[in-house]
């Protein structure tokens, strides 16, 4: 189920398992450090094995898959855009992923600018003068793709790691 060879993605939300049943004492939550421990060690190995560009692509792609499943399973896609955004903000806050805020939203041209504060991936990282939230880029793109049925390019333009207090993303229709 998890380890067979494949030519396309097979992940589904149910693959996360019955956490309540499996962790009756420890519960569904863990610490941010543990999450980052996995992401940054994985990134380290990916870069070492396949190079920076390929590693970034893998993280973005994984984020997209996660965003898409997140959208299908935790969000109501029948809501209008403002209702959808309000619900997304609420879910991201509830799950301690980050504080999503919309700065600009052109629903006609599907052109968005948004920020994520207290981001799970990067807030508190040392300054490295480069954006690091590749997984978030994919995550946001996956949500928007699934909600609108259209492909999006999501770019992180500010990041905690570049010295900013909040991560800022632009999302535009893929040309």
């Amino acid at each position, binding site marked *: 189920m998890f380890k067979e060879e494949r030519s396309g993605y097979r992940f589904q939300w149910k693959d996360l398992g019955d956490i309540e049943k499996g962790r009756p004492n420890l519960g569904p939550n863990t610490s941010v450090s543990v999450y980052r421990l996995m992401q940054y060690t994985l990134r380290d190995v990916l870069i070492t094995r396949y190079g920076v560009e390929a590693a970034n692509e893998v993280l973005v792609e994984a984020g997209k898959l996660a965003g898409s499943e997140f959208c299908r399973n935790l969000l109501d896609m029948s809501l209008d855009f403002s*209702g959808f*955004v*309000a619900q997304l903000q609420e879910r991201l806050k509830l799950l301690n992923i980050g504080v999503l805020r*919309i700065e600009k939203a052109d629903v006609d041209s599907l052109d968005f*600018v948004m*920020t994520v*504060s207290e981001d799970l991936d990067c807030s508190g990282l040392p300054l490295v003068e480069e954006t690091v939230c590749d997984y978030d880029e994919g995550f946001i793109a996956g949500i928007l793709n699934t909600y609108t049925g259209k492909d999006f390019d999501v770019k992180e333009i*500010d990041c905690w790691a570049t010295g*900013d*207090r909040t991560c800022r993303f632009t999302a535009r229709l893929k040309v």
Partner: protein
Amino acid sequence: MTTSVIDSVTDSLRQLTHGRVPEPVEKPSGDEPENMSLLVDALNTLTKSYSDAQGFLMALSEGCLDVDPPPKNYLVSHFKHLHSHLKHLTWQTQQVAKGDLNQNVDFLGDFSVAFNAMIQSLREKRLIESALEKSHQDLLAANAKIMESIEYAGSIQSGMIPEPQKLNAILDSYFVIFQPRDVIGGDMYWLEGTPEEFSFAVMDCTGHGVSGAFMTIVAATCLKRAEQEKGFRDPGALLKKVNRLMRQTLVRESRSRLYDDGMDMGICYVNRNERLAIYSGAHISLFVFPGNPAVKEIKGDNHSLGYRSSNPDYHFNNHVITLEGITDLYMTTDGLIDQIGSDKKLPFGKRRLKRFIQNNHGQPADIRRQALIKDFELHTGIENRRDDVTVFAVSV
């Protein structure tokens, strides 16, 4: 040389601390120690960061949020955070302006408290508006049902007034103005007899609208019974009988109530062959032209019909009128005479009615009817109608 570099650096730092952007310091020559070159590089980076920050901060201070913050500039990172918050608040406010109340502002201190309180108030207001709208729709639906019922009652009331065929069969020249203030009303008119001799009447019951219409049903029933018993040739006797019948009906029905209902009525009997008319009224007058004076008002008795205070044995006076030439006989309820006009806030009045009767004598009935309606509407203007209006005019 080292002293010169230090002086330049010192001067630049002084300018920076005073909010000015200094010129970049020239890099020292190779003879200088390496740390001097690093110092100048660091100062020039600081100067550039400060210069980039200035434009952004100035725009931000003026409320211009469309400006792009300088990238990778640590001097403004907190201001970029503020800029981001303000942009978000602006978007949220725009959403609210569009009617979207799904939004909430999280973790922005006093902004969050104020904004979320405003959103909550607007949500409550929307709920109240929604409840009001529902009440309004319920009222409209209830009103539609009531109106439907009233209009149906109006058709029933119309069935109680004489049909045009009957009027045309008995009367040569006549007109009727029958205008309930609402769809239905407390006025009614009546006609019985033959082309040679007939009686016509108008009546004005207590109230108007639905209550008045109910009263007209009682009145019409009593009048019919009275006419069957007494015939139509003695108006005074008819009024007396109607008075008794109405008292019997209304006093019995309203024994346990505080209400006291009744009506005013005028009945005029006409005999063409004998060229005479007999009039008897209960608070309603007959206007006769030609008469003496020109338009003669024969007042009804000062006694209404059907009230608790109405004496059941009261005998209503019959007034005999000799008909000379073509005589116009007018009866009207007080809805015409008492209607206040919008101009001088005075009632339409008997004097105006008499003038109309005299001035329009000899005109075809339809013309007189239209003229009287026009006079009445001109007089009323924008003033609200006060009562039902009925005018029954017969020329013999």
